[in-house]
């Protein structure tokens, strides 16, 4: 053992609390980063999907012969060719891999083909003759509710149900169907292993759950299917559910060739689930001092044709139906209905977004009725640590700085008065239709609350492995980097815990590590971060114990100021630690919706400033400022990145983003017609990060991805209401909602 004395005391670089540059930045900036769209393999075939042109139809016949007659076509597969379980689903396997007797939504996959090249595959898909007999489609959620076509009903009753308040406000609210619209569409490559198994590289937020579903539907042993994390162009919930995964594996095993598929944008709009459209009814009752004494809510979500995560989204919507406020008499009834509309499921905010628009609109109405400042009303009712959640009664154990959020918003300076004379800054933009003298300004506030991690008794865990290498350490995980910066923050956590500067993150496939769970529910920094922290801490302790050292750093193990084990000697050993991290357990609630359903919570608030041309119904969102409860910002730059991006998705839902349905058909499945905010639609953002110790996340960190999207929509709607005087009971707010109420 070589020894050296005279240790230089130094702090490792890139630890928690700093903002090291993203390690995937260089390949992404040089065009070398491999997205699922870019994958290729020797002898690869291309696949295409045949989709139902009807919202509901009986499938009387499928003739694949015309497709097979085309040169270069290697496979045309239908429901009859699914070797294992005929259905899949994230929570309930109710969705056919390929529609058999009946197609239940517009765009539902009916057949898949593989051919030598993409053009041939698409020609073959068009050549398959499907005999559809259109059936009456059920597209009205109220009618579905009457017919008891439901995925789940929720009933929450808490406290004395006879309580009544002196001041009562009621309202009905509607939220349109939003799309995640990640810039990269669904794509993937399946490679047969020559022994009956398959390797899948496809867009995903959760490779282990993809693998389980592929195994089931292909009738294979679990060890025969390996799902590999791959580069993806955004997610936002759209990649939790299986779409092309099983199809690709079927085609690869059927043909014995690697098979690739990339959805076109219009196909992507039908190929993934959307944010549930919602219909909300509220009744808030308060005493004359503004204290909430009773909240009643009814929540209807349209789940579309198949279950996806509707039951969990509905639960979230109901559990957070009162928002970050205390109230001791609550009744919430919710239903997620089954229709022939497109399936809806996970999108950033997961049910908490829709109800936030409802309860925050109500809080403003109540403030108006009480002639009270809207933030004062919120402060009077603020839910904080130690209080029971109004719906479930779960006592909040971790820090919840609701009052500090409110006070922070109050303290933020407002922009100068008056609309800008820059045409691009006026409502309607450079179309030059608005004139400054017709523009009025409005300011609106909203608060939101969200659970972090999976709820209702889910066994929510993540595994991570930390291994010593020649250059430092590597964190191995199957957790998906969707762009949020997990690849940066896991390395930061390991650096801090080990005390070294050189840590990389390696994404490994499902055969090499246990599940990290989904990159969703704002959970990976807390859960995979928790596993990484514990693995790194244990590894450091074992190493120090082995060499009787007191410090580990980039040079090796030190005892006092003597280097007892240089890094080369350490790297020659077999040092690794694998940890499965679980957050505090949760339980399913009882028949009244009471129980400890959630592991952690985060609160955020937004203040929106808008200019509105009431006559033309045009809106310009100038600013959305925010204060957000983050626990501890492990990487402040990434946290702000999540906040700024999340706010813009909330602004999109407030003023422009909606999938417009016509009898079950998406009428605008392109980026020409489904409007995404550009930089000229993007408000300026000032974000205040509120840090408090006490959460169970690594170093007290909380998930930060979803809160920016929850109350930003409601804040913009409130600002439009203030500017226009209109009721604004629906988002997105359309020009006619302002100009022709």
């Amino acid at each position, binding site marked *: 053992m070589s020894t050296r004395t005279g240790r230089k005391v130094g702090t490792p670089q890139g630890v928690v609390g700093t903002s090291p540059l993203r390690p995937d930045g260089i390949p992404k900036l040089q*065009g070398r980063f491999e997205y699922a769209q870019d994958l290729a393999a020797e002898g690869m075939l291309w696949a295409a999907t045949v989709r139902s042109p009807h919202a509901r139809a009986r499938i009387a016949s499928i003739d694949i012969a015309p497709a097979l007659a085309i040169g270069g076509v290697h496979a045309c597969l239908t429901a009859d060719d699914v070797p294992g379980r005929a259905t899949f689903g994230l929570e309930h396997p109710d969705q056919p891999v390929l529609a058999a007797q009946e197609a239940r939504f517009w765009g539902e996959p009916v057949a898949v083909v593989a051919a030598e090249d993409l053009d041939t595959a698409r020609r073959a898909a068009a050549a398959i003759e499907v005999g559809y007999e259109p059936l009456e489609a059920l597209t009205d959620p109220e009618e579905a509710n009457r017919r008891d076509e439901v995925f789940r009903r929720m009933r929450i009753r808490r406290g004395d149900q006879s309580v009544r308040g002196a001041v009562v406000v009621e309202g009905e609210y509607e939220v349109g169907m939003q799309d995640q619209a990640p810039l990269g569409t669904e794509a993937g490559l399946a490679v047969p292993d020559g022994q009956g198994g398959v390797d899948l590289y496809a867009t995903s937020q959760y490779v282990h759950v993809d693998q389980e579903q592929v195994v089931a539907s292909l009738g294979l042993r679990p060890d025969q299917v390996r799902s590999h994390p791959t580069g993806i162009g955004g997610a936002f919930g759209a990649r939790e559910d299986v779409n092309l995964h099983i199809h690709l594996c079927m085609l690869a095993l059927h043909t014995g060739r690697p098979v690739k598929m990339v959805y076109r*944008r219009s196909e992507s709009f039908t190929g993934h689930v959307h944010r549930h459209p919602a219909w909300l009814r509220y009744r808030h009752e308060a005493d004359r001092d503004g204290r909430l004494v009773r909240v009643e809510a009814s929540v209807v979500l349209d789940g579309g044709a198949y279950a996806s995560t509707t039951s969990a989204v509905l639960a979230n919507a109901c559990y957070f139906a009162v928002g970050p406020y205390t109230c001791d008499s609550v009744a919430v009834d919710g239903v997620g209905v089954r229709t022939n509309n497109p399936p809806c499921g996970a999108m950033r905010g997961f049910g908490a977004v829709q109800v936030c628009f409802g309860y925050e609109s109500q809080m403003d109405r109540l403030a108006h009725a009480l002639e009270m400042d809207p933030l004062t009303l919120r402060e009077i009712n603020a839910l904080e640590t130690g209080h029971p959640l109004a719906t479930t009664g779960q006592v909040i154990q971790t820090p919840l700085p609701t009052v500090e959020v409110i006070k922070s918003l109050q303290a933020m300076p407002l922009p100068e008065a008056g609309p800008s004379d820059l045409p691009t800054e006026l409502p309607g933009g450079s179309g030059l239709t608005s004139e400054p003298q017709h523009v009025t300004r409005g300011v609106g506030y909203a608060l939101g609350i969200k659970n972090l991690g999976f709820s209702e008794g889910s066994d929510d865990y993540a595994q991570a492995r930390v291994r010593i290498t020649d250059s430092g350490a590597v964190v191995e995980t199957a957790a998906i980097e969707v762009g949020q910066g997990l690849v940066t923050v896991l390395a930061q956590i390991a650096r801090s815990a080990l005390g070294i500067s050189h840590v990389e993150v390696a994404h490994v496939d499902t055969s090499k590590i246990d599940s990290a769970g989904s990159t969703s529910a704002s959970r990976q920094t807390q859960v995979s971060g928790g596993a990484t922290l514990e693995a790194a801490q244990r590894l450091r302790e074992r190493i120090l114990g082995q060499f009787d050292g007191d410090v580990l750093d980039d040079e090796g193990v030190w005892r006092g100021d003597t280097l007892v084990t240089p890094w080369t000697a350490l790297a020659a050993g077999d040092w690794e630690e694998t940890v499965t991290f679980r957050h505090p357990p949760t339980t399913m609630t009882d028949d009244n919706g009471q129980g400890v359903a959630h592991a952690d919570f985060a609160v955020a608030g937004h203040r929106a400033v808008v200019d509105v041309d009431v006559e033309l119904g045009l809106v310009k969102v100038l600013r959305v400022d925010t204060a957000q409860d983050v626990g501890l910002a492990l990487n402040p730059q990434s946290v*702000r990145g999540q906040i700024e*991006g999340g706010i813009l998705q909330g602004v999109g839902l407030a003023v422009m983003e909606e999938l417009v349905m016509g009898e079950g058909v998406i009428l605008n499945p*392109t*980026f020409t017609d489904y409007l995404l905010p*550009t*930089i000229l639609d993007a408000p300026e953002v000032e974000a205040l990060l509120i840090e408090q110790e006490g959460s169970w996340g690594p170093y007290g960190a909380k998930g930060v991805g979803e809160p920016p999207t929850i109350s930003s929509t409601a804040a913009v709607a409130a600002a439009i209401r203030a500017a226009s005087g209109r009721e604004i009971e629906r988002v997105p707010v359309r020009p006619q909602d302002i100009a022709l109420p």
Partner: protein
Amino acid sequence: MIPPRDITLLVNGREYSVQVEPRKTLADTIREDCGLTGTHLGCEHGVCGACTILIDGSPVRSCLLFAVQCQGTAIETVEGLATDGVLHPLQEAFWEHHGLQCGFCTPGFLMLAKGALDEDPSLTRDELREVLSSNLCRCTGYQNILIAVEAAAARMRP
């Protein structure tokens, strides 16, 4: 089907001799025939700008051009932005200012900004916002993209 044509494209200073159908887009040709997959397709019809490249120095959407139209032009893609492994000021600034998250839109924004700043490195913040409004990003909220482009512009000024 009209038979394929033999064409030569000049991409990042290198000649690529490829055989393409006349209807094949430049974006598909760059990705599939030249093997340069840094040019991304987000919408396939000229809205999102992820496929933005430079032709004779001007930003264009490569999904709206046919490859056969582009013979005799100088095509620049994101792969040609760094020279001898040294990042372009725009790439450096996007990295430093967290101007990317998933990164799918990034090559398009880089080429858009390069075209605009090469033509006029003195563009103001408001002018840059107008330029950048032609491309879509779903992750960042654009704040850091604007900051990065402004920072790069300062470095690129003579």
